[in-house]
């Protein structure tokens, strides 16, 4: 019987490979870990949106822990997320900086914010995805936690909700504020 084991090896190897491939099938390819985590915020300089005086650049992100949120008036999930961002603003939980991504025209973003409220400290207009590409964004909304030294500490894909805020954001923010 002992001499038979070589005949089973291909089967065993196949089994192991099948196991890993099957596990891989269940993974979401959209959730690629960002290479920007623990790196300095990349350089970018975005003009203000219409009706606003100040744009948003990487030099605005220092000396405080903040959120950077990529949104657009065309983005349905951003609309879902929006009331929670407004709550954060009302509670003065954390400054939120916005990148207004790929608006169909220059008035769409300001109109949207006027209608639903503006939770952002500063907003940069990003019609050509320069800001989005700087942050390695693949879709909206996406939110980054940037620490006091301007280092990106966390990236969240999709809308922020009360649940994922309490579960993921809060502990990270508390930890960063202690430092």
């Amino acid at each position, binding site marked *: 019987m002992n001499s038979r084991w*070589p005949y089973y090896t291909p089967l065993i190897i196949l089994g192991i490979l099948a196991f890993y491939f099957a596990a891989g099938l269940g993974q979401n390819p*959209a959730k690629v*870990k960002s290479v920007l985590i623990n790196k300095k915020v990349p350089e970018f300089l975005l003009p203000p949106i219409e009706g606003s005086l100040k744009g948003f650049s990487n030099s605005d992100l220092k000396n405080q822990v903040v959120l950077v949120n990529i949104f657009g008036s065309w983005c349905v999930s951003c609309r879902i997320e929006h009331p929670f961002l407004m709550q954060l603003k009302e509670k003065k939980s954390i400054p939120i900086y916005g990148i207004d991504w790929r608006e169909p025209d220059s008035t769409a973003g300001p109109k949207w914010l006027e209608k639903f409220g503006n939770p952002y400290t500063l907003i940069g207009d990003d019609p050509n*995805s320069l800001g989005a*590409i700087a942050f*390695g964004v*693949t879709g909206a909304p996406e939110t980054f936690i940037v620490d006091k030294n301007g280092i990106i500490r966390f990236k969240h894909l999709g809308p922020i909700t009360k649940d994922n805020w309490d579960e993921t954001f809060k502990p990270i923010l508390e930890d960063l504020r202690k430092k």
Partner: protein
Amino acid sequence: MKAIFTIVAILFFPFAALAVDPGEILKDPNLEKRARSISKGLRCVVCQNQSIDDSDAQLARDLRILVRNRIVAGDSDTAVIDYVVSRYGDFVLLKPPIKGVTLVLWFGPIFFTLAGLIGLILFFRRQRIDSKALVQMDNEEINN
């Protein structure tokens, strides 16, 4: 007959849908050629199995323009690719680089093919030896 042939030939003609807008194309054909070859190697992060050169996604378009702007600004091909990789990671390269974590990916198939071939050779060799031995045993039995 000739007409049918022509029609069939036209049907097989690859009408490649070009995602690159005429407006995006650089005036200098050499720079444009470089931009095209870089774009062909960069994954569209929205529609992940297409390159940004093939994709109609708006983010792909903006990335194509970014690639061209950087080429015009005087960046080398590797500098342009490094810029995009530093934001999106190796994942954005359609052809993953050969390094520690990708060794299995690159050389796994060659390894398994060789291992399989060696296994097969050993298997048939042993079978031949076994059958020879069997024939010998049979002969010996007959002789006895």
